[in-house]
């Protein structure tokens, strides 16, 4: 068992919210306070601010270890404390309590293009940004060509970056950062920028960094990127580590608070229908499904009044806007339920591929053209934010449409000069 390269023990970070800004602000207030209460003022200057009342613990009792070569994703909602954790680990701000041990050179990339200067040329900014990120001049010079090639801005190297398009700017900035060679790399949300092609390139570069044996801490809201890059993830909630485990488990758990209570009438007596039979249970077989996999819901129904003869069942998949995406009626496939005391079964479907999010399932029983039971919101199914496609990372490619499709592109290109026609097929899977 290799010894950990990062050890975090009981880390806490406290912020003072009022921070002397309550009455008046700035210097005048401080001078006033100094005149009114010189002793406590001196104590404050001496470093012991006794303003315990308005404190916020951005991090509390955070402990974990990371072994060399691991790529650990850090996920959590906005304000959960992820960024504070990274700031403490990269020494930008001090912890209030606890201790961190880092064995190796640390580079942190909390923003793309930190310290870029608008007036300087691309070439100058490569050197400046490299130095800010902790590279030596010799190191930058050695990697200069590589950085330029990666950024694809050769032609504009001697143009001030203020004349760059935002895409060029981001490419150059990421290129510098991507050529850092620390033992520990700390990255925050940098893949949220750039176009899809460049994001893919960045992701590839990050994977190279990782396979090169370096340790990476990676914060992102992009579950797709996290799941592709990381094998392990920490879920941060309310300033502490809520879960530390395999990537899929952690992502599922991250999505989990949204699951649970059925929206419809749980009380069978209040539902629509004759009520001779009622569903008594409905439970998705997974907390979180992938968009393209088969989803299944286990259910049970019981006779409550009289027999009704053969019944057919139906399930409706309803999206967050209340739109019924699919009516999966057992009649359509010739499946009928026989009259019985109790019936258990599974409803399964695999198309359409669902977009990430939460879907409501409505379950229906009919017999002889009469509605027996309609259980709206029998359960909810959660679709993982990991997209079912191999390449899509940006929102541009997926924001339209209510569902995902299983599709392919067959291409045949011809050149006017009678060149060889090339046929290619690109599949979504």
């Amino acid at each position: 068992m290799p010894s950990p390269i990062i050890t975090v023990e009981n880390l806490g970070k406290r912020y003072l919210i009022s921070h002397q800004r309550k009455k008046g602000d700035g210097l005048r207030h401080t001078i006033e306070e100094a005149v009114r209460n010189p002793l406590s003022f001196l104590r404050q200057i001496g470093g012991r601010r006794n303003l315990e009342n308005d404190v916020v613990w951005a991090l509390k009792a955070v402990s974990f270890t990371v072994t060399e070569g691991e790529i650990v994703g850090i996920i959590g909602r906005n304000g959960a404390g992820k960024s504070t954790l990274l700031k403490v680990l990269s020494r930008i701000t001090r912890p209030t309590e606890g201790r961190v041990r880092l064995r190796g050179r640390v580079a942190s990339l909390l923003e793309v293009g930190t310290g870029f200067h608008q007036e300087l040329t691309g070439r100058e900014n490569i050197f400046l940004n490299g130095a800010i990120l902790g590279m030596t001049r010799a190191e930058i010079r050695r990697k200069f060509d590589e950085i330029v090639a990666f950024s694809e801005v050769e032609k504009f190297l001697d143009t001030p970056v203020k004349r760059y398009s935002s895409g060029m700017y981001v490419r150059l900035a990421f290129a510098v950062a991507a050529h850092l060679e620390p033992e520990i790399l700390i990255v925050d949300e940098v893949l949220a920028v750039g176009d899809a092609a460049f994001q893919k390139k960045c992701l590839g570069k990050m994977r190279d960094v990782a396979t090169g044996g370096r340790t990476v801490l990676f914060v992102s809201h992009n579950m797709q990127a996290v799941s592709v890059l990381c094998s392990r993830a920490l879920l941060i909630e309310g300033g502490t580590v809520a879960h530390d485990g395999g990537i899929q488990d952690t992502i599922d758990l991250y999505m989990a608070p949204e699951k649970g209570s059925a929206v419809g009438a749980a009380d069978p007596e209040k539902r629509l229908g004759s009520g001779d039979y009622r569903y008594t249970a409905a439970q998705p077989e997974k907390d979180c499904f992938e968009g393209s996999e088969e989803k299944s819901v286990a259910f049970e129904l019981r006779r409550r009044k009289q027999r009704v003869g053969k019944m057919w069942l139906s399930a409706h998949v309803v999206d967050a806007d209340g739109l019924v995406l699919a009516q999966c009626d057992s009649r359509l496939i010739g499946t009928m339920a026989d009259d019985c005391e109790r019936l258990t079964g599974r409803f399964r479907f695999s198309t359409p591929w669902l977009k990430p999010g939460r879907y409501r399932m409505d379950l229906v029983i009919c017999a002889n053209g009469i509605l027996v039971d309609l259980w709206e919101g029998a359960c909810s199914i959660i679709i993982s934010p990991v997209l079912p496609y191999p390449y899509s990372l940006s929102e541009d490619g997926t924001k339209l449409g209510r569902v995902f499709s299983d599709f392919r592109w067959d291409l045949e290109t011809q050149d006017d000069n009678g060149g060889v026609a090339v046929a290619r097929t690109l599949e979504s899977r």
Partner: protein
Amino acid sequence: MTELIIEPGRAERQYWRDLWKYRELFYFLAWRDLLVRYKQTVVGVAWSVIRPFLTMVVLTIVFGKLGKMPAGAVPYPILVFCGMLPWQFFSTALAESGSSLVSNSNLISKVYFPRLVVPASSIITSFVDFLISTILLTALMGWYRWLPSANSVFLPAFVALTLAASLGAGLWVAALMVEYRDFKFIVPFITQFGLYLSPVGFDSSVVPERWRLLYSLNPMVGIIDGFRWAILGGQHRLFLPGLLASVLGVALLLFSGVWYFRKTEQSFADVI
């Protein structure tokens, strides 16, 4: 493998080592400030010549011609320029380094490095201006056919003293401005009043002897007198108690500046 421990309030032994490691960043930030300084200006670097020259002309007219201040045998422009040399350096360095942390706040909140690098490197642009002004003074002395005195060998010591004074004051203001933006308004006052409170446009010998020591509590008095003594020599005697007061004052300013800066540095990213 280097091991790094992050703990609250840990007086980092590695701080000064880190500072050395980040000397290239110091160099690059200074280089950036110099490169950017005169971008998109028409006359460019010439500003470094025009500004002190015009100031010299105004001060000569106000104090020398209108105020009829004594200058002895020394041409008044040279007398003024000798005073302006350290004063301009001090005042621009104070303004630059004082605002350096705030104007680099994007760096402070996103990257780690010893924060001392920022105010220290921002002094370099003022130092370059100082060197340009020195050349201008040489030209001025050539024009008046005035030879520098042999005391000039001590000039580097006074330059170092000015540097220390600028850095000390700059660190104080930079650290304070992170929390109190009031200093944005205070610094111009300091430099404006300081110009008249320090013997820039006149010779400090006009101050009555019994007030001399009190007057020397302003560390710039000893420094400016020192510059005049080193460059002009002649009737410019060195007022030793004043010089001593100045050296002590500068040392106090520098050490307390570093102390305060180091103490507040840890919370810069939270406050800025």
